């Protein structure tokens, strides 16, 4: 299951959904908003997503992970809207029979999500400027 939300992510609640009597391992990843990027002081981050395709593509990634690592349970939640420093922007959790698969599957999912989902983030800097991440020309014109 993958879901987009404007509400605060509740990792503990999400983790419970992965409990499985056959699982001996759980691995979770939380992406947090940090206060700096590439030498700029960052005040907050604004996330925009095209939800219909973010969900479709996200489900594909979870299905790929389940195919690579049998008996895997995997969930993901991604925030949209304005986020403050320290907030959780993305949560990925997996459970599986053994830890190797759990570590690898979690890593696979977050790495793929970052490069495939139609999600964009705009950094708001302390100097009053802002810029879209991964977009050099845009940052220059901001």
């Amino acid at each position, binding site marked *: 299951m993958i879901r987009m939300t404007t509400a605060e992510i509740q990792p503990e609640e999400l983790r419970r959904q992965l409990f499985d009597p056959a699982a001996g391992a759980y691995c979770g990843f939380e*992406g947090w908003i940090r206060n700096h990027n590439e030498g700029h002081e960052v005040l907050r981050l604004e*996330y*925009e*997503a*095209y939800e*219909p*395709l*973010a969900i479709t*593509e996200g489900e594909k990634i979870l299905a790929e992970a389940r195919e690579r690592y049998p008996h895997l349970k995997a969930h993901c939640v*991604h925030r949209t809207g304005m986020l403050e420093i320290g907030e959780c*922007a*993305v949560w990925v959790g997996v459970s599986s029979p053994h830890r190797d698969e759990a570590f690898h599957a979690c890593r696979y999912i*977050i790495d793929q*999500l*970052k*490069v*495939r*989902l*139609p*999600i*964009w*983030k*705009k950094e708001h800097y302390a100097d009053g400027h802002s810029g*879209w*991440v*991964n*977009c050099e*020309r*845009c940052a220059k014109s901001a």
Partner: protein
Amino acid sequence: MKTITVRYFAMFREHAGVGEETLSVDAETAADVFHATQDRHRSTEPSGHCKVAINDVMADWDTPVSEGDTVLLFPPVAGG
């Protein structure tokens, strides 16, 4: 000429000043539509690290477009 609805996201939307517009374009592929919007909005972002979808399905730049299609232009993504 084909009537194509184009949807812009994130920095593309800010650059175009609109989220969506319907254009009459001489286009065979998604790349042709992208280049037409670049001429229209004087944008120079290379397509290499951008993505495109047609009618809510992820596509390639050489995917053909048809009359009435909606082409979604995605600037470089940055989730997580």
